[in-house]
C-alpha cells in the first residue's frame, strides 16, 4: 500500500491547457474523489496517474517512487473503466487472470487468486461465462475483480458507475465502499456525480477548468466552501446566489444590502475581517436554510413558478422581484401553489458571503 503525490502536474493538448498545475497528496489508504463538471480535466488527471496520458509538466509519485515516465503496468496501479473494458472474447476467469498471466505468474497461483477475488465479489457462478452473458453490475464486478487480483498499491476508478441504472448504482456504491474498508487500499475515484463523491470519499477534490478549487472532507466542502464554484457545485438543489453590496460591518459580520430585493443591512458571517463597504459581493444560501417568514431578520418575497414535490420535501422555485430565480426546500409541500406569492426568511447563521470579483469566500 502506498500514497500518491501529484506535484504541479500539467497537461496540454497543443496550446490548450487541460490540467493546469495540480498539487495533491493522497494518503496511504485514503479514498479520494475527483469531482467536477464534464470537461474539467478530472479524467485526464486520472489517466495521467494511470500512465495512459503523458504528463506535460510536473511529477507523479506512487509510494514514494517517481512514476512520471513509468509504464502503466509498472506503476502499481489498477484501473476500473467507465465502460468496464473487459476483454469480450475471454471468459470471466481469463479476464481476471490476464494481468497475472502477463506478469508471468504460474497458472496455479493465478487460479487461486482469481478464485479468491471471485469469492469476494460473488462471481463464482460466472467464471466460465463471457462478458456479454453478464449483466451490467456483474460486468462491473468483473472489472473490479481484474483490478483486485493485481493487488495494486492504488486503485483508480474512472466514473465506474455511470453506465449502470440508478438502482444498481446505489448497490455498487455500497460495494465499493465495503471493498475499500476490506482492502484498506488507496483509491482515487473520478465522478461527475456529487452524491457518489459525498458518500464514498474520505476527501473530495473539486476540479474546475483543470484546477483544484478545493480539497476537503465531504461535509467540510458542504458546510464551508472556499468559493462560489464549490458552493454551487456541492449540494442539491444548488445554493441560491444573490447579488449584494457590502455597506458596513458589525463585529465579525458584514452588513450587506440588496436594494432591488428590498433588503438592507443583512448581517452575513465572514471568515475573517469584513470586506470594506462598497465591495460588490454575492450572498449564498442553501435551499434548506430558507425558512418561514415569521420572526426572520431578513425576509424575501417572490412568485412561485414551479413546485417539485418529492414526497418528504418539496423544491419550490420562486421568481424574485428582480426576476432572478430562487429555490426553497420545504417540508410543507401543500403550502405552495404556482402563481401565489411566497414569503420566507433567510437563516442568518447559514449565509455565505463571496467576493463578486474573485468568487472567493470572505
Amino acid at each position, binding site marked *: 500500500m502506498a500514497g500518491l503525490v501529484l506535484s504541479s502536474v500539467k497537461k496540454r493538448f497543443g496550446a490548450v491547457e487541460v490540467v493546469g498545475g495540480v498539487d495533491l497528496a493522497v494518503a496511504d489508504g485514503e479514498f479520494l474523489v475527483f469531482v467536477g463538471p464534464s470537461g474539467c480535466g478530472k479524467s485526464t488527471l486520472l489517466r495521467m496517474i494511470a500512465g495512459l496520458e503523458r504528463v506535460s509538466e510536473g511529477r507523479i509519485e506512487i509510494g514514494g517512487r517517481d512514476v512520471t515516465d513509468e509504464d502503466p503496468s509498472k506503476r502499481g496501479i489498477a484501473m476500473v*473503466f*467507465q465502460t*468496464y*473494458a473487459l*476483454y*469480450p*472474447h475471454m471468459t470471466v476467469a481469463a479476464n481476471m487472470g490476464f494481468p497475472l498471466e*502477463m506478469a508471468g505468474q504460474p497458472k496455479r497461483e493465478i487460479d487461486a487468486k482469481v478464485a479468491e477475488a471471485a469469492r469476494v465479489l460473488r462471481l463464482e457462478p460466472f467464471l466460465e461465462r463471457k462478458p456479454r452473458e453478464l449483466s451490467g453490475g456483474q460486468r462491473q464486478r468483473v472489472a473490479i475483480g481484474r483490478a483486485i487480483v493485481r493487488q495494486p498499491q492504488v486503485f483508480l476508478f474512472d466514473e465506474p458507475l455511470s453506465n449502470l441504472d440508478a438502482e444498481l448504482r446505489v448497490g455498487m456504491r455500497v460495494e465499493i465502499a465495503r471493498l475499500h474498508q476490506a482492502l484498506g487500499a488507496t483509491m482515487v475515484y473520478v465522478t461527475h456525480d456529487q452524491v457518489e463523491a459525498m458518500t464514498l470519499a474520505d476527501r473530495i477534490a473539486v476540479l474546475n477548468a483543470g484546477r483544484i478549487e478545493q480539497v476537503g472532507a465531504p461535509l467540510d466542502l458542504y458546510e464551508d466552501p472556499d468559493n462560489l464554484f464549490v458552493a454551487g457545485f456541492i449540494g442539491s438543489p444548488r445554493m441560491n446566489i444573490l447579488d449584494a453590496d457590502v455597506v458596513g460591518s458589525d463585529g465579525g459580520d458584514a452588513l450587506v444590502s440588496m436594494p432591488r430585493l428590498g433588503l438592507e443591512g443583512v448581517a452575513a458571517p465572514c471568515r475573517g475581517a469584513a470586506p470594506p463597504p462598497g465591495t460588490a459581493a454575492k450572498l449564498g444560501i442553501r435551499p434548506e436554510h430558507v425558512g418561514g417568514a415569521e420572526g426572520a431578520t431578513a425576509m424575501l418575497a417572490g412568485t412561485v413558478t414551479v413546485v417539485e414535490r418529492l414526497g418528504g420535501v418539496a423544491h419550490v422555485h420562486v421568481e424574485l422581484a428582480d426576476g432572478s430565480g430562487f429555490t426553497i426546500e420545504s417540508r410543507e409541500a401543500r403550502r405552495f401553489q404556482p402563481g401565489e406569492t411566497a414569503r420566507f426568511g433567510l437563516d442568518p447563521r447559514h449565509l455565505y458571503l463571496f467576493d463578486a470579483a474573485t468568487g472567493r469566500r470572505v
Partner: protein
Amino acid sequence: MRRSLAQNLVLALGLLVLAALVLLPFWWVASGSVKLPKEIIQRVPTMMPHSFTTQHFEKLFSSSDFPTYLVNSLLVALASTAATVALALPAAYAFFRMDFPGRAALYRAILLAYAFPGVVVLIPLYGLFSAAGLVDSRISLVIVNVAFALPFAIWMMRSFLASVPREIEEAALIDGAPVATILLRIMVPLIAPGIASVAVFAFIASWTEYLFASVLIVSDERRTIPVGFAGIIGQYQIDWGLLLAGATAATIPVVLLFALVGRWFVAGLTEGAVK
C-alpha cells in the same frame, strides 16, 4: 415499418428483377456447361438444359491446361492473401490506433496508390522483375497482387479497429501486456471478421487479376485462370462448351469461399465505406 400490399408487390417485383439481373447470367452459363454442343449453339436457346453431358468438364480437366491454371491461381491467391494480411494488419493498427508524426501524410500517400492505373507501373515493373530474374514466376504475381490489394486492405481494417473500444487496449496496457501481445491476443480475436474480409478481398483481387498476369507470365504451365482462359477465347473457333465449363469451374472456388465468410466480407466492405 409496415408495408401496404402495393408496396409489397413493388418490392417483390424489384427483388425479382434484381435477382434475375445478378443470377440469370450465372444460371445460363452453369446450365449451358452441361448441355450438348448442339444445344449450346441452338438458334433458340433453352432456359433449362434439354440434354445433359459432362463431356465439357471431362475435356476441361483431362485434356486442357485448366487444372494447371487452377492450381496456379490457387497458389498465387493463397500466398497473396497471407502476405496482404500480414502486411496490412500491423500497418492498419499503427495507422488507426497509434499516434506518430507523419501519420496522416503517410496514410494519404498510401491511398494515392488508387489514383494510378495499374498499367502505369506495369512497364517499369516488368524491367525490375526481369532484372531480378522474376519474370515468368508466380512470385512476381504475388508481389504485384499484394501491392495492389494492400492500400484497400489497410483502409478496410479501419472500421473494424475503430469498433474496438480504446479502453480495452488501455486495460491491457495497465495489465502489463506488451504491444505485440495486445495486437495478437486482444485485437486479432476481436477484429477476426475484419481480417476475414480483408483476406477475402485479397483472395478475390488475386483470383481475378488479368493485366499483370498476362504480361509477367510467359510459359503456359505458370498461367493463372484469367490469362489461360483469355488464350482460349482468343482462338478462332470458340469451343463454347469448354469455356462455359471453365467459367463454371472458376466460379465455384470463390462461391465456396464466399459461402463461408461472405457475410463478413460484405460487412467489411460496407463498414469501411462510410467513415
